[in-house]
């Protein structure tokens, strides 16, 4: 019997190596896998590259992971937040590397990684500093730049529902980067609000099929709060 549901956070985090690229879902506090981030803090892997939309708030979660010196590099579209003190301090001190990526390019680079596309052309960023050093090409009269895929060694994802095969649904705007990162991660770890029996999720309504999911841990924390 396939059972991707693990009982402890330690089991969920087992095997994450130093130097890993970790994709972290969520947009603001919505759909953000906070329990998994805390699990990663506990697990101990360091020298990480983190890809996510923001660069952490306050001194908890991703900000805490950075504050502990465990993140060597962050790839994100919007390093500012309501309280970006940890990131900004580290960044100004030269203790963390930053790669700014337009939000759509970030999503598409991860989708490409999940779909076997190693590189693609896009119009986003043409003529801007994002295009510096990138291959340019005119196609059918418009100029594009080449962007590479962004695969993750690990993806941390929050879902609304999950079953033991790893099928997932998401709640409203909690979907955001989560399904894309699930595709792009070699080891995709999910925290879910609800565990469903196999077959209980309508096959037409599955958003992330279990093929993209490796481990599921049940974290029924309720509603997100604060950004």
């Amino acid at each position, binding site marked *: 019997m396939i059972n991707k549901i693990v009982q402890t956070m330690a089991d969920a985090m087992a095997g994450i190596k130093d130097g890993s690229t970790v994709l972290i879902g969520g*947009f*603001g506090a919505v759909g953000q896998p906070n329990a998994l981030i805390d699990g990663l803090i506990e697990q101990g892997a360091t020298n990480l590259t983190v890809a996510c939309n923001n660069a952490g708030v306050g001194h908890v979660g991703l900000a805490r992971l950075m504050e502990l010196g465990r993140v060597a590099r962050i790839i994100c579209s919007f390093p500012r937040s309501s309280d970006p003190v940890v990131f900004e301090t580290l960044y100004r001190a030269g203790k963390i590397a930053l790669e700014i990526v337009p939000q759509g390019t970030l999503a*598409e680079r991860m989708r490409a990684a999940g779909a076997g596309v190693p590189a693609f052309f896009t*119009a986003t960023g043409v003529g801007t500093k994002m295009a510096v050093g990138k291959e340019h090409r005119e196609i059918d009269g418009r100029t594009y730049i080449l962007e590479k895929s962004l695969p993750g060694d690990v993806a941390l994802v929050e879902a609304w529902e999950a079953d033991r095969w790893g099928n997932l649904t998401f*709640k409203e705007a909690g*979907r955001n980067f989560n399904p894309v990162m699930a595709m792009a991660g070699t080891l995709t770890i999910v925290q879910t609000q609800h565990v469903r029996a196999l077959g209980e999720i309508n096959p037409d309504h599955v*958003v992330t099929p279990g093929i993209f999911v490796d481990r599921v841990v049940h974290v029924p924390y309720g509603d997100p709060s604060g950004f």
Partner: protein
Amino acid sequence: MAETDTAALKPFSRPQMAARVAQDIPEGWYVNLGIGIPTAVADYVPLEREVIFHSENGVLGMGPAPEKDKIQPWLINAGKQYVTLRAGGSFCHHADSFAMIRGGHLDLCVLGAFQVAENGDIANWATSENDTAPAVGGAMDLAAGAKRLWVLMDHTTKDGTPKLVHHCSYPLTAVGAVKRVYTNLAVLDVTERGFVVIDMAPGLTFEALQARTEAKLHTAS
């Protein structure tokens, strides 16, 4: 800068600016409103004129902000404000949401800006090449991807520096993308000739507007 006519000048207020943009959006358009002033545009589109508002984080068909006791904690927009979803709205993931943007499916995007150049270049994400950690978000995707880009901003900075310029001095968001600019002083189309004035605030003369604008202005005729 010429200040001779300021006694009579009545700049458009923020609500007037937002309402003016709203008035120009026809029913049926798919529209993304940038963070900041542009977000207010939605308040001036009557619900019965069905305009479908998109947010980068996978929300299509946003309605007005919820009353405080009706907040849905899983329903936010790209500005991380609570919103509502209209009947007919839907959710999608980030790659699909940006496929809408980058694939040219949005009829309109309205962004704020630091500078707009007479060739339609826009600078709206960083005010210095040395900004240590500028935040671009979805601005470059929106500016390059939407069918139309309109900018909603003050005509000058607070100290009077023009924001409609020959060439942007700030880092660009996109090249040649802006089609129209709504400021507190005027509405201008971006054309092959450059900025063409199509409306001005009450009490403002073309010459006075030009005095507040670095780029050369043209009349519509």
